[in-house]
């Protein structure tokens, strides 16, 4: 049984239908990438899972139907969503941002997680008392990732982690995601414009076109796929 399963998921923003029946699965311990052009519905797919957009169709997570659950409930069920633009609290300190990540965790469990997360992101340990808004873009993305880990999620939703970052920094972020996946078995559903990097890191991928899955397969297959190569990989 997959960890996450979307079947026939539709979503709309007012009159605009963004998803026309998405079918997608993420297995436990897997990194799955979602590719596609702007407006293809990538972000909306993540938002459908985290409950930040109203949906029709079935969303099952860990054997339970979560479609229609609000974001507060979904977060408590073990899904962490790092949204577009990272969603860190600029005026709060790094430490406070991380503490907020542990909001749904039982009291007393957060301390060990905090130390663990700081070991993974040593730069954040140095900046604990700084306001998050003073961090560089790459550090903020690390903070967003670290804060999501404080939730101890079973599934991480990652929206465009490369946005606005230098290639070297992006590569580092993806390396970290791969490590989290290998070492801790974290399952990840990642939306990414940088298709090359996304296909290198993921085991499977979906290509969305105007709110539907156009191509799906293992990442190795998609890298050889003629039209995917031409449209998204650029060779």
């Amino acid at each position, binding site marked *: 049984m997959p960890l996450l399963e979307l079947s026939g998921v539709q979503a709309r923003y007012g009159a605009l239908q963004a998803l026309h029946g998405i079918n997608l699965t993420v297995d436990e311990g897997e990194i799955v990438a979602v590719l596609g052009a702007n407006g293809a519905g990538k972000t909306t797919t993540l938002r459908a899972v*985290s409950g*930040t957009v109203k949906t029709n169709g079935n969303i099952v997570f860990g054997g339970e139907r979560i479609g229609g659950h*609000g*974001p*507060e409930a979904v*977060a*408590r069920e073990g899904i*962490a*969503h790092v*949204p577009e633009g990272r*969603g*860190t*609290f*600029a*005026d*709060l300190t790094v430490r*406070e941002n991380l*503490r*907020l*990540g542990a*909001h*749904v965790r039982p*009291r007393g469990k957060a301390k060990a997680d905090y130390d663990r997360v700081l070991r993974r992101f040593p730069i954040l340990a140095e900046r604990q008392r700084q306001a998050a808004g003073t961090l560089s873009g790459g550090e903020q993305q690390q903070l967003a990732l670290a*804060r999501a880990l404080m*939730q101890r999620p079973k599934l991480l939703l990652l929206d465009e982690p490369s946005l606005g970052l230098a290639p070297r920094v992006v590569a580092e972020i993806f390396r970290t995601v791969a490590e989290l996946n290998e070492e801790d078995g974290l399952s990840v559903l990642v939306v990414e414009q940088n298709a090359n990097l996304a296909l290198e890191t993921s085991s499977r991928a979906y290509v969305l076109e105007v709110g539907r899955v156009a191509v799906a397969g293992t990442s190795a297959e998609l890298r050889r796929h003629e039209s995917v190569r031409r449209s998204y990989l650029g060779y």
Partner: protein
Amino acid sequence: MVFAADWAGFAQQVVGGLASGGIYAMLALALVLIYRSTGVVNFAQGEMAMFTTFLAWALVQHGVGYWGAVALTVLIAFAGGIALERVIIRPVERAPALTIAIVTLGLFFLLNGAAFWIWSPEQKYLRSAFSTRPVEIAGVQISIQDLGVIAVAVAAATLLAVLFRFTKVGLAMRAVVANPDSSRLLGIRVGWMLALGWGLAAALGSVAGLLTASPSFDQSFMQPVLLYAFAGAILGGIDSALGAVVGSLLLGVFLNVVTSLDTLGLGWTIDNDLRLPAALAVILLVLLIRPSGLFGTAQVTRA
């Protein structure tokens, strides 16, 4: 001789000003709490405090001891604030600020009307929390009441600061104000945090009401206090909690000093009847010269 100043009298006025400023500060903190989460000034904040003060009076009339009535009133105010947010504000939570402001204005008239309907319009008498007996400190006669009020205001502000800085729920409340959407993704129950803000504001206001009520009060007794609190909050910066406290204390002292200049041997002073206009002048001046106040965030909008 101009400097035949009565310094003891002056010091007394300053302490008295700090005491009234402390009351304004509590109501101003309540205003800031709600302003930061809704973007509007809660016009009903004073009437909420008026209503809970009547409740305290009614409890005492029914034989509850003064301190028991005070504790119960603060608890009822807290619960009532939460209920008001859930029932009246929540339906308009995403509406434009003007809509929310009009709703709080409606709440003002609702509470005012209800208080007249339930309780007669005659003056009510409630004992003071503190003795009005003066004590002498460094040659200055200061009333215990003034010192008590200052202590309560300091304690309330400190408790609030501790709540927001050091507790999980306080941190979550700050996160909700900063970014409700991100907060939801972390599993924070945004609606309840907003309601909690209203509960705290109502509780703070109820304390301000009780401290203002003695020796006597009626249905309109909190209306000038709301204006002073508003002036204090504007002076300090309407989105700053620290500003609300500092601004209100400054305003309290300022008003007391300008209405007692004669004690400084100036031979004239501003009439006490002009207290309220003086406070309104402060609002006007701050908005003209420095709209963000002493500690507020300047609003910068791209043309």
